């Protein structure tokens, strides 16, 4: 008979436990989970990349909804357990659900510590623990105002870097004299502070917060020495406490955390605890590696293996802030019985320190260069006697035994049991073993099978080196996701080969690049069609059957199968006759909905497909052309009224917007392109969240790019300042062409820019006049073939089969 297993909390620890349990005893339990957070299990340690905008929430989900369904697990999302009745063996949630258990697992994690100062509950004071906190921070960041992060530890610094990436002005307050003092010695703490400050984040150490004040919401933070720091957002990241209150109320033994034995069992034999809420051998933990070990043990115990026991091991700490390399392990305090070896290289910003006791490593701090971390960790774990290599130890593994080795050789030299992935405790042998025995060829496969580099990702480089060592040349570390399952090639490779081999039709691409399917799929065909349109504007015959329906019929399909029609209104400007023509069309075709769009023009919705050509014919009479509201192409150029009308306008922003739109309309791009021109820095056209934006200033035109305001919100980067309208147009066109030639299909400008680098784009467009001109010329050439109004073409009969049924079968015949 299956037993009932109930789990309280759906964090990383129980998630891992279930994976092991499903492996070991798939049918033994009927599992029910209650999670106070209204969501599935996600990778909490990747919240910082979500905050900084480097990842989306969807990318950090560990178990999607389907996983629970597949394994028959009931997950109550947004249900907080408020009582455990140990006598009746039930738990009850705040929504009133009561569930009986045979075995109960408590995995309630931690609660962030809130410093007891006045004002700590004002709106605008947040902690940093879950996705809701991240969303609240991202929302607050939209104001681009000032943030104060209290706490200069791992979490605080990651929050600070994320908020800064979101455009906030950030100050970190840290009560100790140096940052991350629990993981770093003062020298490394100092280097870290410098690196953080170099990014524009202010750091105040020895900062004793006295009060948070404000009228109804946070306005400032006051320190004990009288310093006042203005802030609209305060993030407290000062530590965590095991979340053990629920267990305590139920009479389960609790000390700092829920007290469990080495088998993760509490004083009630049917109740287990694991994760940050558990205390084992007097220790509580706050990093995933030991929690995963707990998960393994708890799963074994639940599967009936009573010998499984938790063993403590030190976990290295790394900071997940791009560009800051830091590694800390074990005990690095000074002491009479200890010696240290230090290496400093000021010009390279490198600091390394090893703490030794009895010729064994007991602690390591590495800053600026951390490649040897895994090796030092291994020496420490095995308690290797290092006296033989003492003189060269600090220089790392590659210096041992004569001539320096390259990094690849260093990885090759690691023993099979050297830990590669600290988060998941995966050693070298397990990874190389899985690659060979399971025939793994991609990083994703290795992640899926071994979990190595699947959590924080900081060991990805090492894992890739292992793949190169094991697979030889067949593994290309730069290998990217294939375009789709029809090919093994990635987008960049396909784009390169189209040019290099002069491939000019979709069948030619599929033949030459050895497509695995006969005629592609809905993912690769539109991409290939775009690449060919872009690369061979004069020679390639657009393949309409490879376009998404919207681009095939030049209107947007709606949920009921009708279409919407959005004509261009250049720069958002219209006239009485245009409005009258729209009104007439709306009446004549009984169009049910007319709406002003977010892009400064008018949308007519609910038009029958058969009517489209006639609607376009009428609109065309009034001078309208297609607004390409459906296209991966130039959409709108929003403008403000500018110097013609506005008392603050510095240039003719409306005029420039219209000029850009008239110059660039009709062009196909990898993803949609939206632009805006504002007449002064007040920025009423919202140019700083567009793919390309212009802010007019007295001295000229400040060109912005790589903004976004849809799925992601991101302020633009500044490309540069130019003096004249002509120059502005040339730079914008060149930038767009560079994007057209390089980006992957469906990749918006901001994502492309992140991949190739803002600096590189500036170099090619701002500094290299020749390159810029060449891009510009190629765009102008391709416009010769692209600037054809698709509506007038279709109103005069092109593709007419698209708009009519092939035949109609009448009632009489059908009823026979």
């Amino acid at each position, binding site marked *: 008979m299956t037993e009932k297993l109930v789990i309280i909390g759906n964090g990383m620890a129980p998630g891992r436990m279930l994976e092991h349990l499903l492996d070991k005893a798939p049918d033994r339990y009927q599992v029910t989970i209650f999670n106070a957070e209204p969501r599935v299990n996600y990778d909490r340690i990747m919240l910082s990349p979500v905050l900084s905008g480097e990842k989306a929430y969807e990318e950090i989900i560990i178990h999607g909804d*389907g996983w629970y369904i597949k394994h028959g697990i009931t997950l109550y999302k947004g249900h907080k357990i408020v009582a455990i009745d140990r006598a009746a063996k039930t738990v009850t949630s705040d929504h009133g659900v009561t569930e009986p258990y045979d075995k109960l697992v408590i995995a309630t994690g931690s609660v962030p510590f809130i410093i007891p100062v006045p004002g700590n509950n004002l709106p605008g004071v947040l902690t940093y623990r879950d996705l809701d906190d991240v969303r609240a921070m991202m929302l607050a960041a939209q104001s681009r105002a000032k943030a104060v992060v209290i706490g200069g530890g791992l979490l605080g610094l990651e929050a600070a870097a994320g908020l800064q990436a979101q455009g906030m002005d950030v100050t970190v307050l840290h009560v100790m004299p140096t940052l991350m003092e629990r993981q770093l010695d003062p020298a490394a703490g100092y280097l870290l502070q410098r690196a953080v400050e170099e990014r524009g984040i202010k750091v105040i150490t020895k900062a004793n917060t006295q009060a948070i004040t404000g009228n109804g919401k946070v306005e400032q933070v006051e320190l004990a020495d009288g310093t006042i720091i203005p802030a609209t957002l305060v993030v407290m990241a000062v530590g965590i406490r095991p979340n053990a209150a629920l267990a305590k109320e139920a009479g389960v033994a609790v000390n700092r955390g829920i007290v469990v034995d080495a088998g993760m069992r509490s004083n009630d034999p049917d109740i287990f605890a694991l994760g940050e809420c558990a205390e084992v051998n007097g220790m509580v933990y706050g990093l995933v590696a030991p929690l995963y070990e707990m998960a393994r043990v708890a799963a074994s115990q639940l599967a009936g293996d009573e010998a499984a026991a938790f063993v403590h091991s030190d976990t290295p700490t790394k900071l997940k802030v791009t560009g800051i390399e830091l590694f800390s392990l074990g005990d690095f305090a000074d002491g009479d019985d200890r010696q240290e070896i230090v290496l400093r290289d000021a010009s390279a910003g490198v600091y390394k320190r090893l703490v030794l006791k009895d010729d064994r490593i007991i602690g390591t701090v590495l800053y600026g260069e951390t490649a040897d971390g895994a090796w030092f960790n291994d020496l420490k774990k095995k308690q290797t006697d290092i006296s033989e290599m003492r003189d060269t130890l600090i220089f790392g593994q590659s210096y041992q035994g004569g001539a320096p080795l390259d990094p690849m050789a260093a990885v090759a030299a690691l023993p099979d049991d050297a830990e590669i992935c600290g988060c998941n405790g995966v050693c070298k042998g397990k990874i190389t073993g899985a690659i060979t025995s399971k025939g793994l060829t991609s990083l994703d496969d290795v992640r899926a099978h071994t979990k190595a580099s699947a959590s924080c990702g900081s060991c990805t480089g090492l894992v890739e080196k292992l793949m190169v060592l094991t697979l030889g040349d067949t593994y290309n570390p730069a290998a990217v996701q294939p375009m789709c399952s029809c090919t093994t090639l990635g987008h960049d490779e396909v784009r390169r080969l189209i040019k290099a081999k002069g491939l000019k039709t979709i069948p030619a691409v599929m033949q030459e690049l050895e497509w695995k*399917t*006969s*005629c*592609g*799929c*809905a993912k690769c*065909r*539109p991409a290939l069609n775009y690449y060919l349109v872009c690369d061979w504007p004069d020679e390639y015959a657009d393949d*309409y*059957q*490879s*376009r*998404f*329906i*919207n681009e*095939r*019929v030049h209107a947007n*399909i709606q*949920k009921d*199968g009708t279409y919407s029609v959005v004509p261009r209104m250049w720069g958002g400007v219209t006239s009485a006759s245009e409005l009258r023509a729209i009104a007439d069309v709306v009446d004549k075709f009984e169009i049910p909905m007319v709406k002003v769009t977010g892009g400064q023009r008018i949308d007519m919705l609910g038009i029958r497909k058969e009517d489209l050509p006639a609607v376009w014919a009428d609109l065309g009479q009034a001078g309208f052309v297609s607004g390409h509201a459906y296209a991966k192409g130039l959409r709108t150029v929003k403008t403000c009224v500018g110097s013609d009308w506005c008392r603050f306008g510095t240039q003719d922003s409306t005029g420039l917007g219209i000029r850009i739109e008239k110059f660039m309309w009709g062009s196909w791009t990898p993803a949609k392109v939206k632009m805006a021109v504002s007449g002064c820095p007040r920025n009423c056209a919202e140019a700083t969240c567009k793919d390309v934006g212009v802010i007019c200033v007295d001295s000229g035109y400040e060109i912005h790019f790589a903004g976004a305001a849809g799925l992601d919100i991101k302020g633009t980067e500044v490309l540069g300042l130019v003096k004249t309208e002509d120059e502005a147009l040339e730079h914008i066109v060149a930038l767009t062409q560079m994007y057209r030639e390089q980006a992957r299909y469906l990749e918006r400008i901001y994502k492309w820019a992140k991949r190739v680098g803002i600096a590189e784009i500036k170099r090619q467009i701002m500094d290299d006049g020749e390159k810029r001109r060449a891009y510009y010329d190629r765009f102008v050439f391709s416009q010769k073939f692209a600037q054809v109004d698709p509506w007038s073409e279709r109103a005069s009969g092109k593709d007419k*089969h698209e708009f009519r*049924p*092939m*035949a*109609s*079968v*009448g*009632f009489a*015949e*059908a*009823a*026979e």
Partner: protein
Amino acid sequence: MTWIAIGTIADIPRRGARCVATPHGKIAVFRTADDEVFAIEDHCPHKGGPLSQGIVHGAAVTCPLHNWVISLETGKALGADEGAVRTIPVKREGERLFLALEALASRAA
């Protein structure tokens, strides 16, 4: 079995589809890259999307609304999705195409 003429194969673009209007709703008639012809209801099993407007690849079509992939041969959703649309027998005689009338009529029942 009664076959109703609906036109010729040339009326449908390769890797494309056309509709046939009937009193019981639209039928989508597809022509693949290698000139096979299939007919299914123009109504996605997911949320009723017009399958005739999707991208045709191999003997399958990707729905334009939410990208389900439907097999033209069986009418079944491929991959992880579950559902099916009815298929309607089509016959080709030379260039001319015919739909099975009974199949159309019985839809209403």
